[in-house]
């Protein structure tokens, strides 16, 4: 057979992949929503960029001071911070973007070196990595101003640290992807991740309570940080600056050894992926006992349709470990705050001087923010099943009522839990505070449901249940939600301080209830519009939410 050709060279393949990414980006802008989302990202990105630039200046000045005034610990601390941001930020926020996974290109004759390069290149273009590279450059500039001899050692040391971070980031991503390929392990890892994040909040109260006893251990542990990559990079620079090239070289060799080990770990996974390892969702078939079919639920006061939808949504929520663990955090936060207050001999150390009257409103505010997050993208998890809702003889109003009912029940349950916890840990909450909080929460919740029902239909974003990778609501949805919170918080604060100024906070309760009544009318009006909007937008909704993974 004539015309069999060899695989294109690496540069051609890289060019083609670059072109593919560019076309995907440009084609994504064909819709109005795509353009609006880009605009939101640019605006938000500009704000974040300002912070990154400012922090870079701070790090540069810090490096200059560390080298110029002989403070190696400061340099080590700065590098440690960059190291942590580079590794942790992408894992939490954006590191799991499947759309840029080079595995999807394996059907083509992709060379292993190109495959590996693409995996690493994706890491460089991650926003966190780009910010960290800029920070390292700013630190180099600071070092250059302080001492040129230190710069000679800093350049290779920082380059090695950056390369190590790149490898480490990809290695963690690749190994986590391996473990998260199955739904169950993914949810377990997600749960562990959330518990770790929550346990991080215990550090401050525990330090207040047991800090003096733990100090020797912490000091011993801190000396161990010296042998971690940021410590080694800092030591390379400080030994080089001190004119001890042997020691500097040894530290640098240590850094390279880290690169070697991490590179080897990454290579194991990348080789497996390149060979076409199948990370499938499917479980091994197992025999299941036949179980009788149970009748569905009844929900008093609601139609059978709403009851069935509510049951479905509750089952979805309970099978989404990430979602319901997030919903549990407010209760834990109350515990954390109370530990900080009771554990500290000097309450101001915790940063908050809290009384029992502030726990309840704070807890409820946190609960509200957590629960309304669901309301702004309430169709997110319906995915492939959504067309069924359009094919069935129901009004879409019922779908939203069921979802709002679920959100309300979650909110009510959490408010009760928070209330009970607060009574235990902070003492009785004054009745007027309870009234104010509940009335304010009712109004705020209705405002959010009203806006959330519209936003869910106009700016939906598909989310995968139980998944830890990049899972963000639409930028526009976030913007609207932010706007509603600002308006509600601003008005609530104004009314509260006005009523205090007038000497009767009970008036504020009445104001909140009146506002809740007005918002209820608006909520009902929006519910009446929902069926028509959903019908008009059914194609867009199904295109966004029901597209295959």
């Amino acid at each position, binding site marked *: 057979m004539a015309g069999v050709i060899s695989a294109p060279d690496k540069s051609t393949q890289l060019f083609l992949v670059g072109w593919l990414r560019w076309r995907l980006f440009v084609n994504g802008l064909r819709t109005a929503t795509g353009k609006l989302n880009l605009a939101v990202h640019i605006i938000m990105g500009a704000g974040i960029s300002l912070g990154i630039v400012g922090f870079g200046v701070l790090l540069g000045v810090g490096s200059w001071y560390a080298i110029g005034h002989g403070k190696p610990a400061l340099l080590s601390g700065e590098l440690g911070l960059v190291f942590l941001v580079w590794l942790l930020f992408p894992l939490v926020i954006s590191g799991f973007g499947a759309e840029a996974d080079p595995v999807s290109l394996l059907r083509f004759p992709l060379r292993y070196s190109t495959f590996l390069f693409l995996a690493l290149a994706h890491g460089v273009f991650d926003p966190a990595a780009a910010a960290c590279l800029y920070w390292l450059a700013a630190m180099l500039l600071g070092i250059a101003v302080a001492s040129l001899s230190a710069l000679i050692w800093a350049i290779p040391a920082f380059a090695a640290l950056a390369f190590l971070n790149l490898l480490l980031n990809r290695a963690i991503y690749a190994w986590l992807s391996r473990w998260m390929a199955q739904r169950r392990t993914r949810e377990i890892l997600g749960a562990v991740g959330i518990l770790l994040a929550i346990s991080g909040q215990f550090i401050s109260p525990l330090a207040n309570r047991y800090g003096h006893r733990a100090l020797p251990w912490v000091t011993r542990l801190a000396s161990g940080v010296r042998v971690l990559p940021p410590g080694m990079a800092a030591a390379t620079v400080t030994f080089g600056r001190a004119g001890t090239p042997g020691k500097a070289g040894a530290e640098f060799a240590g850094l390279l050894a880290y690169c070697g080990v991490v590179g080897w770990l990454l290579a194991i996974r990348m080789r497996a992926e390149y060979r076409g390892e199948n990370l499938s969702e499917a479980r091994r078939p197992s*025999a299941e006992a036949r179980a009788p*079919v149970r009748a569905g639920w009844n929900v008093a006061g609601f139609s059978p349709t709403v009851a069935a939808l509510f049951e479905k949504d509750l089952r979805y929520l309970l099978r989404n470990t990430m979602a319901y663990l997030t919903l549990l955090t407010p209760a834990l936060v109350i515990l954390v705050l109370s530990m900080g207050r009771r554990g500290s001999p000097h309450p101001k150390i915790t940063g908050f001087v809290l009384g029992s009257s502030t726990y309840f409103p704070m807890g409820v505010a946190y609960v509200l923010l957590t629960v309304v997050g669901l309301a702004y993208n309430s169709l997110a998890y319906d995915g492939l*099943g959504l067309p069924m809702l359009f*094919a069935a003889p129901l009004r879409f109003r019922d779908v939203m009522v069921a979802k709002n009912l679920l959100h309300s029940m979650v909110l009510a349950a959490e408010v009760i839990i928070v209330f009970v916890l607060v009574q235990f840990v902070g003492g009785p909450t004054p009745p007027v505070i309870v009234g104010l909080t509940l009335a304010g929460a009712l109004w705020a919740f209705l405002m959010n449901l009203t806006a959330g029902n519209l936003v869910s239909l106009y700016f939906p974003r598909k989310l995968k249940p139980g998944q830890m990778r990049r899972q963000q609501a639409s930028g526009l949805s976030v913007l609207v939600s932010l706007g509603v919170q600002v308006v509600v918080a601003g008005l609530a604060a104004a009314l509260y301080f006005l009523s205090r100024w007038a000497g009767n906070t009970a008036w504020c309760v009445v104001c909140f209830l009146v506002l809740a009544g007005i918002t209820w009318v608006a909520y009902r009006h929006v519910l009446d519009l929902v069926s028509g909007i959903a019908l008009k937008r059914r194609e867009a909704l199904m295109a966004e939410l029901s597209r295959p993974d």
Partner: protein
Amino acid sequence: MTDLAVETNGLCRRFGELEAVRNVNLRVEAGQFFGFLGPNGAGKSTTIKMLTGMLEPTAGQIRILGLDLANDPIGVKSQIGVVPEGLALFDRLTGPEYLTFAGRMYGLDRVTAAERTQELLDFTGLADRTKSLIVDYSHGMKKKLAMAAAVIHGPKVLFLDEPFEGVDAIAAGTLKAMLNRMIARGATIFLTSHVLEIVERLCSHVAIIHHGELVAQGSIDDLRSGVAARHDDGQKLSLEQVFLKIVGGERAAVPELSWLE
């Protein structure tokens, strides 16, 4: 008053510049096993989405069992069952949970929905996978479940978009048995399929859509004799031959690929 299960008049659907469905006038009588055929991209799925209320027509009228879909969508949807293109399953539910959910969406009471769910699970052979989530089902199991959900309320008209695509012979057998039972109790079945042998075996009537236009409609025998008369070769044509002659697939010479010579 009417014997027509599905009737469309001047049905059109545009996607920007593209006219995906053009002036389609369908007539499907009640009780017919009706095959809706066409090459890829001809407008089959677009038509079926419009007939089931999942896509708004740009123009034209749709009547299902005499009811106007635009004026009474809930009334129409109560009487039809649908297995759409992507199956539309809530895959984080178990099979029984999904079936009882579907039953209640179509107005069955809790007990009836549960009883029918049990029967359907037994019929489709899914009764021993009652605890697995649908996401863990095989493709064939998902198809059977989607079909079960579409018939749980005993619809008078069943719309199926490629029901046999990607299913093995055993699953296909179950699906065909279910469809035959539906026909036996007087329901109308409207299906699209690329497997013309199956359509020929199951359907009594077909319509063929090509480039968004209805180019043929009638009983398979009528189409066969019509094509045979036109081509005058005296042979009994298979549905595939009829289809190819109507959409011009036979006439088009298969171009050569220079590098595969």
